[in-house]
């Protein structure tokens, strides 16, 4: 079946009314879902997955529980603002969609622009201290893609901790797009939990543009979806910007997980730090692609990227492509990748202390996962991230 057959079910009348959305739909139709022939999708064939995707129409479905963290929050259900459940902070509101498809954006962003739906608008004034807020996107089986948009604008010197949770049940396609703009010296902590249903497809695109001295700390924990991809495009456009972009993906069964990042150093004296960890069990396949781009003017760039993968079963697979693309000479850039099973030396050390192999393995895997959570420190959100790890752990039956 064609991967685009679902469009027949979508009410395109409203799309056709808006020139931007119509143009985006055309772009999506022309390109289709990305596939292996596209170098950026070398390891993730979304088109093939979408050909046999089960677009189940919504039926009677159990209500989903909201994470209870007593935080200001915006809730989207199936891509629609849920006023009853949302308790937004003053700087959060329902987003009015009317964005233009950015040049060069991939077909998933085009699909997001074309189909519209609701979104969340978060705008902090200069020097505003936003504290901690949460955005929850819940979804249930759906015959159409869920395409919310998030716009986050932090004024100069503003700060915010943003916790994002995606969760759901049944088969659906979740295609969120984030536009994040950080003003001079603004600070955003962005902790993401991707716990979408294991029948779903999750393809998120996050754009971050940072002005001088801005700080972005992104952490993604991905445990859900049958096929998941989190794609980040971070542009450091002012000097002395600092980005940390960390992720951990836990995969089991036949899950396919992909973390793709592009960090563009377009100004001098910026630093980027990245650690991406994958734990892969069963017949799952993990992908990490990371590119650091350094423009000619981005002298004194300090870029570092680390990719660690732990393969827990004979059928697990990891594909990794850490790239450096450098046009400035006075830079310090490095990446590293380590792939393998648990270290036999460590297992022997544990056994020599009386801990048997199964328990020793479990300890080491948990340790690897605990370390993965380091970027979020003692955040109030930590319990929900730990709960997602526990849930994955039960599913993987390790």
């Amino acid at each position, binding site marked *: 079946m064609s991967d685009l057959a679902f469009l027949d079910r979508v009410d395109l009348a409203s799309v056709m009314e808006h020139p931007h959305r119509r143009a985006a739909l055309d772009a999506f139709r022309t390109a289709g879902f990305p596939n292996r022939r596209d170098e950026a999708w070398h*390891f993730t064939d979304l088109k093939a997955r979408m050909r046999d995707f089960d677009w189940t129409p919504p039926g009677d479905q159990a209500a989903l529980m909201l994470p209870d963290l007593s935080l200001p929050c915006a809730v989207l259900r199936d891509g629609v603002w849920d006023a009853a459940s949302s308790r937004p902070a003053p700087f959060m509101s329902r987003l009015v969609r009317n964005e233009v498809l950015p040049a060069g954006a991939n077909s998933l962003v085009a699909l997001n622009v074309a189909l519209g739906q609701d979104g969340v608008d978060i705008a902090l004034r200069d020097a505003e201290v936003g504290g901690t807020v949460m955005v929850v996107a819940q979804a249930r089986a759906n015959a159409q893609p869920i395409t919310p948009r998030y716009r986050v604008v932090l004024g100069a010197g503003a700060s915010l901790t943003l916790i994002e949770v995606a969760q759901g049940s049944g088969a659906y396609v979740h295609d969120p797009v984030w536009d994040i703009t950080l003003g001079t010296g603004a600070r955003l902590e962005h902790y993401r939990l991707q716990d979408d249903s294991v029948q779903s497809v999750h393809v998120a695109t996050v754009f971050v543009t940072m002005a001088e001295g801005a700080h972005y700390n992104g952490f993604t924990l991905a445990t859900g979806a049958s096929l998941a991809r989190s794609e980040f495009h971070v542009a450091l456009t002012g000097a002395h910007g600092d980005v940390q972009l960390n992720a951990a993906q836990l995969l089991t069964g036949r899950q396919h997980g992909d973390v793709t990042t592009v960090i563009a150093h377009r100004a001098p004296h910026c630093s980027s730090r990245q650690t991406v960890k994958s734990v892969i069990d069963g017949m799952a396949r993990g992908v990490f692609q990371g590119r650091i781009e350094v423009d000619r003017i981005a002298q004194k760039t300090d870029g570092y990227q680390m990719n660690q993968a732990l393969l827990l079963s004979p059928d697990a697979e990891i594909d*990794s492509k*850490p790239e450096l693309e450098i046009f400035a000479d006075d830079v310090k850039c490095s*990446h590293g990748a*380590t792939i393998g099973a648990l270290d036999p030396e460590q297992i022997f050390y544990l056994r020599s202390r009386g801990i048997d192999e199964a328990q020793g393995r479990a300890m080491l895997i948990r340790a690897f996962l605990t370390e993965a959570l380091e970027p979020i420190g003692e955040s109030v959100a930590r319990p929900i991230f730990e709960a997602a790890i526990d849930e994955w752990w039960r599913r993987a039956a390790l």
Partner: protein
Amino acid sequence: MAAITETRETIDRLAESGYQYGFETAIDMDFAPKGLNEDIVRLISAKKQEPEWLLEWRLKAYRAWLTMADPAWARIMHPRIDYQDLHYYAAPRAPAPKSLDEVDPALLEMYEKLGIPLNERASLAGVAVDAVFDSVSVATTFRDSLAQVGVIFCSISEAVREHPELVRKYLGSVVPAGDNYYAALNSAVFSDGSFVYIPKGVRCPMELSTYFRINARNTGQFERTLIIAEAGASVSYLEGCTAPMRDENQLHAAVVELVAHDEASIKYSTVQNWYPGDADGKGGIYNFVTKRGACRGAKSKISWTQVETGSAITWKYPSCILQGEGSSGSFYSVALTNHRQQADTGTKMIHLAPNTTSTIVSKGISAGHSNNTYRGLVRIMPKARNARNFTQCDSLLIGDQCGAHTVPYIECRNQSAKVEHEATTSKIADDQLFYCRSRGLSEEDSVGLLVNGFCREVLKELPMEFAVEAQKLLAVSLEGSVG
């Protein structure tokens, strides 16, 4: 005396003696008209008096080539190549400089710095000495002494005649005729190249060497090299490349195939300093080469070492297929680009069998307006239990108008495998430079010294004579990049 020096002297002697040992086809100076079609393929095969099966093989490759497109994934840019505007078999002699006086002094200066003997320089510069090296292998001098231990070292044309069973068995067995665009082209029209066969248990008593040359105008070069090491055999093969300065871009699409059986070992070293074009990117060689080794036998070893300083464009990924249990592959590379040069080079290590190991050490140096890309694949297949790979890619930038890129692909499908990859990009540290200069070295010499230090791990893999030449070459190639 080392084989490489001897080879050079042999070339000199051949040059002086009017090339009396040349192959008849070369003496006759046959040439085909420009362009490529089935008739040209048939002509080449007929001129070489090839058996029917080889003609069929060439034609099959040609037909495959017609259906293929040139690869677009590498980070290289060049105008479309008009394959119908090239000669595919020898060439009419281009009006060559009459004497060294007519040769660009900059080129002569470079030869002098490399320590190339005077008469050698003339031939390198394309001066009309009576030796023709185009498309014909000359490194067959030591055949007699090698024959005593059963080693076969001859041109591939001769091997087709004298050892057809070996050629038929192995030709295209590592790089199939339709493997990629350039390999298919080579398979259809390959001119000549080396053939090496080391029998069971024999350690080749000397290092084997071939100097390739490209002299004539608009001559595509399509060498084909095949090296087979039987069980327990070992050989070290050196390939040096020098081309004269020419304005037109010249295409070079070679194929090298290596086969190592049980516990055999093949070491293949290359120093490539073909004409890189001038400072503005005019001229220079397009070097689109497919090199691949198959470690067929248990505990076999294949090692690629390359120092790439020449060519306008280098597109080259010497690779290892690790099929034999416990086999190992290594790739040591220095790629230096200056001015407008482009290099997209690296390796593929395909681990198919248990306990296979691979090592990749790549040093890229970019200067001027050049772009230098490391592109490598490490693939661990499900059966490759306990496979190990270690990769180290370091890039050095000299000046702020060049680019250094690292594109590794790592695919791991066995949990007991261990894959480690490290890459760094940096410039020559100011304090290192200052330290050298405060000891009296010029800035240029300091950079040369530090670049050589940066490349140490790779250079030490080269046979001694090559290492010395490579060091000089690095320094010479960097001239004009500092200050």
